[in-house]
């Protein structure tokens, strides 16, 4: 059986064709580099994806800090991982690379901060509170 893939590893977006018999991969064609072949093998065995989202920052100069997985996670666990990340709030300041969830759901990937966020300046906070009240 022939199955077609679009490699997502890099912007080349190689179009790959794999010849599969039962559980065995007979051949993979179309990759410009070996990461394409690895992608197809992974995609057939256990498709994985990275995800990026954000978490709330308490007292932050902006309300959100972006985060991402350090390693790809199984595709069918994406929404479960999103739920875990949504539970987290961090206290400003936060730094790039700060781990906010270690080994999320035992999937072998950490969730790290990808944007440093400083503390909101006192005066801005007071202003906001005045406006809000």
């Amino acid at each position, binding site marked *: 059986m022939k199955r077609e893939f*679009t*490699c*997502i*590893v*890099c*912007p080349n*977006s190689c*179009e790959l064709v794999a010849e599969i018999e039962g559980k065995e991969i007979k051949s993979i064609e*179309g990759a410009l580099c070996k990461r394409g072949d690895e992608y197809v093998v992974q995609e057939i065995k256990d498709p994985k*994806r*990275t*995800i*990026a*989202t*954000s978490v*709330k920052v308490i007292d932050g100069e*902006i*309300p*959100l800090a*972006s985060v*991402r997985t350090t390693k790809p996670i199984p*595709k069918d666990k*994406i*929404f479960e991982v*999103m739920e875990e990340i949504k539970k987290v709030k961090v206290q400003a300041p936060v730094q*790039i690379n700060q781990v906010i969830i270690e080994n999320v759901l035992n999937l072998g990937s950490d969730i790290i901060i*990808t*944007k*440093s966020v400083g503390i909101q300046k006192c005066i801005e906070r007071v202003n906001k509170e005045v406006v809000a009240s």
Partner: protein
Amino acid sequence: MNIIKKDAVILGGGPAGLAAALKLKEKGIDNIIILEREKKTGGILRQCIHDGFGIVRFKEALSGPEYADRFVQEVQRQNIEVQTEATVIGLTNDKIVTAATKEGLKKYQAKVVILTMGCRERTRGAISIPGTRPAGVYTAGVAQSYINLKNIMIGKKVVILGSGDIGLIMARRLTLEGAEVLAVIEKQPYPSGLPRNIEQCLNDYNIPLYLSHTVTNIQGKERLESVTVSKVDEKGQAIEGTEKEYNCDTLILSVGLIPENELSLQAGVELHPRTKGPIVDENLQTNVEGIYAAGNVLHVHDLVDFVSIEGEKLAESAAKYIKGEKGYESIIPVTTDHTINNVVPQKISGEQDVEISLRVSKPSKDGQIIMQQGNKVIMMKKFKKLNPAEMIHIKLKKEEIQSKEEIKVVVG
């Protein structure tokens, strides 16, 4: 008003501006300032929180903010002057830059002005969608900034018009955040975003993509209630009787980016009708001596790695100009026909190797890019596939250039 003298004034602190500043500094130019209208530098990357940046440059898949941070940190370490919350409002052809800042108006006299203002999105007005004017219609970049920077969710049931990368990435982002993306509608018979984004942003989440379709009406009073989608023929005209109604509260437009060149025009910089960015020579200098351009202000890039490289290349030439070194004169025009959407630079000297960046106008398989002078083919490169979504970079060696005649770049 006091006029501040600078060797280089950089308009915009996105990846192009930051890379240019660092390279100028490396070349020994110290009297530089970056003017940025936002509170922080980093440009559009601050809101692009997905990963996939830096694969070419750093061999890792970083998120936009992480990629930007590497340059922001280095600019700080090198003590390069940065003024944020400073919007440039004036630029003249003798390189006087006026900026509106928190401390009032400031004027700079620059030896070199570096244009790195990025681009803006095409809006509903630009593509004239008929219908009512309800809330709930956003451009993809604005939706991205609401969700990723301001923590504002924009809707629950979404239709996306246009298959540009930002729209595709927002389809995934909205789905992850619990919204339902009903469909992506694309007028062209092929997607305008990268294939890998079709795969990982749409196919992964079972979001359908309708090619050769467009939005032909918008309904709703206060808030968007539904959109009408129709098939289009080869000429892009809606086909009657093919209308389909989608009940949704949000329509996202991802219908293209336009280089941000209001200021450039003020200074008499000539723009190219295809790129909508300045016409530049191989030094990335515009027709106004001492004014240079790189990044999305010059032509819209799909990869930031090449934006940084372009910023650096610009700075190498600008540094020479500041030091009074005379460069080669670019007298060979580089032109195209209908098979290519655009090329940059549009003029070269023929005295050194150059890199030509281009986009093809139609997708094709097993095609080749040919450069010719008169009837002579001077360069030919084969490609397994050609896709307008991807910018192509081709080195043209000095030895390959045969004369001072025009170089024509075509798909063969």
